[in-house]
Structures are given as structure tokens and as C-alpha cells.
């Protein structure tokens, strides 16, 4: 008889922050429960209590150095409501949007080029010392040029309107504190076409790499699921604002046009004692069946169309195999992410030729309200903020539901699927470890900012007996 045991992958490399994966084996050697654990705790919801509401958009972006703009803008949108503003001026709305598209562009570029593409370029079983961005630089210098320049351009957009590449200052309750000057606009216009072209090249590269190994990649860590994303009223992809749409695994609408104020009516949170992260679910489907996925796959699956030509063409190509039904392949999230990156590049270019961004009517105000809620499509998926503010303008309550939390159950399921598919015998092989990391990385989980190497990363694997005793350990790096 084989003893039940656990396999622990700690830490998972090339994700934002540190996570830990535990696979519990049954006594017969088959894979039992798998757990994806976040080993850090941030506590922002608690310590922004007591702060003036107009400070919050600046404070909460310190959650992350990769997607601060998403938190900055989401908080600002919630504070708009508290300031009594339901609709910004045209200039303020578009200035915020160009910052957001710059953020989506640079963040998706980091994930695809720096974190994900090495797995596709060198193969999951490729040597760790080569399967990283350095390997890309050494072996695919043109791709490295795209990677560096696309990210740099996205950050330049953020800096142009927010003053800084990381932790910028732009949004205030009811608007923005500056527009995009003509000089800033003209400087960005110089590179806009090149960025769109290189995002298109990246899309072709991604498609080629996926199609070369399509049968394997389609099945890798894959399962059917529901999807949740923001969608504009006319059905277009809208990464900055819109109503919340949920679709089932067959593409049928579960809900649509939901507003931030009614978030709790449609999405519930399950707490499990072993994880800091909650497990959100669609209330109408219940805790067991209501889990869903967010992020690029959901963004592309949920919308009816994309309102930029190259990304729309790419969306149609992406969804063609499903005949219009959702695409469920977990690793096709990379493909979807590049479509979203291309869309963001097209949007930035479109806005750079929109004179509204030089408008000077930037802030409006209304009648103060005690509560405000808002959402945005962060690069990793739906991000939701809600705040309550007292009569002294101080925050009394906050809820932040981040994209990685929304994907919590899905990440666990992908790890479980990979473990079932790739665990052979009772050895902790490189193949198993690599594949677990590839599955987790597909969701671009942002577990908070913590140092992580782009190259070789320490990897500790521990086998534990049911009583916690260590059966075996294996370290890498």
C-alpha cells in the first residue's frame, strides 16, 4: 500500500509575487486535492480606514508595482461616485482611458514577453537556465526588441499623463488633474505605429507557436468554465468601464449589464480556512458550480466584438474553432492576452489622434454620497473596489476584489488537471514541476510585489506524509 503524501511546489517562479502549490496524493497514489496558496497578506482594506477619501486612489496603487494604474483608476472611479459624479467630462474620461490602455499594454507585454513566451519559445521541458527572458534575448533578439519597446511605450503613456511610470498621479474624485499636452501627444505619436505593428508581430508569433503544438496546448490544464468580464452597452470589449457580463461554458448569458452597485447581488465570496484568498462565485449557480474565470480569456470570450480593427480580426480568428462558443484552453490565455495587448495599442493610437485629450474641462463635482463602487478590467481581469465614507470624509469601510482572487478556483483546478495528467509514479519530476508552473503562470497571477527572478529561481519541492512529516525534499536553483 502506498502512503498518502503531499507535493509542495514553493515558490512558483515567474509569477508576480510568491505562491505555493500543494498536491495531496491519495493512499492509492492518485492525485487528490490540490491547493494553490498565496503566502503573503497585504491588508489594504483595513489600513485605508480612517484616510480621507481623496487620498485613496494614491494609496491603493501601492498594492502593486505592475498594475498600480488599475488600482489607481478603479479607486478613482469609486470616489467619483462619492463625489456625486456619475459621468466625467469627455476630456477627463479619455485621459483616464489612455492611461489605462497604456497600463494594459505594458502589463500584458511584461507577461507575454518576459514571463510566458519563454515557455512557448523553448518548450515547457526546456532547461530552466534557458527558458527565461534572458534566453529570449540570446536566441530571439528581435522578440526582445519588441518586448522592451512595447513595455517602454506603455509606461511612457502612463508617465505622460500621470507624471511617473510607476505609481502615477492623475485621477482625482470627479476627474483628472491634467490633460495630455500637445508636446506629450506628439512625442507619443512618433512611436505609436511601430508599437501597433510589433504587437501584431507578437500576435503572429504567439499563434505560430501555439499552432505548432496545438493538440497538446489545447488540453493542457484545460476545463470548461464560466467567464466574467466588463462589456460595453453595445457588446464591445471595454477594458475601462461597462456592465458586468457572465457567460456559461456554452456561451449562454448568465447575467449582463450588471452595475457595480449590485455586485454583491450576483457575485458571492466563499471563505476557505486554508487560504488568504477568497473564492468568488456566481450566486445564481451556487458555490459548487458558480466559480468562473476572468482575464484575457474572459475579456475575449464575453464581448460580442472589439472596436479596433486588428484586434477584432484577431478575435474572430481566435474564436473560429469554437464556432462562436467560448474558447476554454487554459494556455490560450496567452493568445487572448496578446489580442488584448494589440487592442490596447490600437486604442492608445486612436486616442493620440483625438483632440478631446487636450480639453481643459477636467474636474466636476456633485452632491456627496456615503458610498461608491466601481470596477475596471485590470490586465488580469475584473478588479472591483467599494468604499464607504463618513461625514468627515474619512473611509470607514473598503472592499477590494482583485482579478487573481476571481481566478482562485480556476488556478486550483488547472493545477489539479496538470497534476492528474503529468504525475507518473511517485517521483517529483522536472516535467511535473515545470508544468505546474506553466499552468499557474497562464493566469498571470499577481500575488503582490515580491522579488522574483527572471532567470533561475529557487524551487523547493517537499513531500509530506499525512501527519506533516517530510518524506522527501528537492531543491532547484
Amino acid at each position: 500500500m502506498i502512503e498518502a503524501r503531499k507535493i509542495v511546489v514553493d515558490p512558483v517562479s515567474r509569477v508576480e509575487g510568491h505562491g505555493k502549490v500543494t498536491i495531496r496524493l491519495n493512499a492509492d497514489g492518485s492525485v487528490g486535492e490540490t491547493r494553490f496558496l498565496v503566502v503573503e497578506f497585504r491588508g489594504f482594506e483595513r489600513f485605508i480606514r480612517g484616510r480621507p477619501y481623496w487620498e485613496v486612489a494614491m494609496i491603493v496603487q501601492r498594492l502593486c508595482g505592475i498594475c498600480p494604474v488599475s488600482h489607481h483608476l478603479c479607486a478613482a472611479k469609486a470616489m467619483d461616485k462619492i463625489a456625486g459624479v456619475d459621468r466625467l467630462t469627455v476630456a477627463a474620461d479619455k485621459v483616464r482611458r489612455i492611461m489605462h490602455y497604456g497600463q494594459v499594454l505594458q502589463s500584458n507585454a511584461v507577461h507575454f514577453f518576459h514571463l510566458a513566451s519563454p515557455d512557448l519559445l523553448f518548450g515547457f521541458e526546456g532547461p530552466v537556465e534557458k527558458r527565461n527572458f534572458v534566453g529570449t534575448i540570446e536566441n530571439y533578439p528581435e522578440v526582445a526588441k519588441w518586448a522592451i519597446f512595447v513595455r517602454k511605450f506603455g509606461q511612457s503613456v502612463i508617465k505622460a499623463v500621470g507624471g511617473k511610470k510607476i505609481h502615477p498621479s492623475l485621477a482625482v474624485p470627479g476627474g483628472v488633474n491634467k490633460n495630455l499636452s500637445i508636446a506629450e501627444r506628439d512625442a507619443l505619436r512618433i512611436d505609436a505605429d511601430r508599437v501597433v505593428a510589433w504587437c501584431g508581430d507578437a500576435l503572429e508569433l504567439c499563434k505560430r507557436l501555439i499552432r505548432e503544438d496545438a493538440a497538446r496546448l489545447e488540453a493542457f490544464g484545460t476545463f470548461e468554465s464560466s467567464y466574467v468580464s466588463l462589456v460595453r452597452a453595445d457588446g464591445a470589449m471595454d477594458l475601462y468601464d461597462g456592465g458586468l457580463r457572465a457567460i456559461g461554458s456554452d456561451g449562454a448569458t448568465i447575467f449582463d449589464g450588471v452595475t457595480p452597485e449590485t455586485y454583491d447581488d450576483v457575485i458571492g465570496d466563499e471563505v476557505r480556512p486554508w487560504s488568504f484568498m477568497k473564492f468568488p462565485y456566481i450566486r445564481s449557480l451556487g458555490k459548487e458550480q458558480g466559480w468562473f474565470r476572468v482575464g484575457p480569456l474572459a475579456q475575449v470570450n464575453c464581448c460580442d466584438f472589439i472596436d479596433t480593427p486588428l484586434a477584432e480580426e484577431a478575435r474572430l480568428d481566435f474564436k473560429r474553432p469554437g464556432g462562436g462558443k467560448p474558447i476554454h484552453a487554459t494556455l490560450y490565455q496567452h493568445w487572448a492576452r496578446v489580442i488584448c495587448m494589440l487592442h490596447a495599442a490600437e486604442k492608445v493610437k486612436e486616442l493620440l489622434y483625438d483632440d478631446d485629450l487636450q480639453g481643459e474641462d477636467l474636474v466636476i463635482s456633485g452632491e456627496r454620497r456615503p458610498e461608491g463602487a466601481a470596477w475596471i478590467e485590470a490586465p488580469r481581469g475584473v478588479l472591483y473596489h467599494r468604499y464607504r465614507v463618513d461625514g468627515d470624509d474619512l473611509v470607514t469601510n473598503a472592499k477590494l476584489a482583485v482579478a487573481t482572487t476571481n481566478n482562485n478556483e480556476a488556478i486550483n483546478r488547472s493545477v489539479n488537471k496538470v497534476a492528474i495528467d503529468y504525475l507518473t509514479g511517485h517521483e517529483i519530476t522536472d516535467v511535473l514541476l515545470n508544468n505546474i508552473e506553466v499552468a499557474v503562470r497562464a493566469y498571470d497571477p499577481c500575488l503582490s510585489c515580491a522579488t522574483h527572478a527572471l532567470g533561475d529561481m529557487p524551487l523547493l519541492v517537499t513531500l509530506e506524509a499525512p501527519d506533516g512529516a517530510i518524506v522527501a525534499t528537492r531543491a532547484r536553483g
Partner: protein
Amino acid sequence: MLGYGNPGRRDDGLGPAAAEAIEAMSLGGVRTSANYQLMIEDAYDAAQSDLVIFIDAAKSGAGPYSVSPVRPATNVSAFASHVVAPELVLGLSGRVYGHVPRASLIGIRGYAFGFDEGLSARAQANLSRALAHIRHVVIGPRETIEQAAGGALR
């Protein structure tokens, strides 16, 4: 001019403060960047430049600042997304873009690195001395920083 460090850790913000001050000087032909840390993308800017000056806070050593040459790293694999050294920026510049500019690192001595904003008085004084030196290098004859600094300032 690439000034880097965390302004939320007091004197660690010397690098960004220097970059912002230089930008305010509007010196011809000079581009500046202030950031928490060096990034891989800085290799692109380096490749477009004749001279790169990295500006960082120094936790030890004599004040007011030190100047040292920077050579490109030959092994570009030794970096992480949260740690990119000046040598690696140059190494990537050469590897990806085929051009390695001349480069120096100015380390401005800091004294307080706790969780707060604002430079200490001594660090502020050191920053002023370093800025005078940088301004001299940029608007003076096109000599290297090491030559311009002179022994007394090192």
C-alpha cells in the same frame, strides 16, 4: 541620466531627486528618468545615448558623492525584475541594440533610510554638490565624469 531609488525611504530617493532636478535644468541633449529602480527598458535609452549617468543613493562611503565608471556586464543572465544593475543595463544595450555608451555611476551619500518621505539635511547638501558637478560635466567640455569630478570631490 537615470536616477533611481525609493523616495518613500527618505535618502534612498536621492537618485530620483537628482534626476528631477536635472530635468528642471532643461539642459540641451539631456534626457532624464526617475524611477524606483533600473528597468530592462532603460537599455533602450542607453543605446540611444553617448553617455549614461546612473545616479543612486550610497549607504556608505565618504560624502558628498562618489563617481565610478560602469562597464557592461558580460553575463546578462544575472538579473531579476526587481533588481537590475547599471552594468546589466549596459550589457543589454550592447547585446540587444549593438551599442554600449560611456557610463558612470554617481553614488550620493545618504544617511536616513527609514519609512518616510523627504531627504535628510545632510543628504540634501550632498545632492546640491552632486548636481553642481553633473551640471559642470554636461555643459562644460565633453570630458568624462571621472575627469571632471577630480580627486577632491570623490
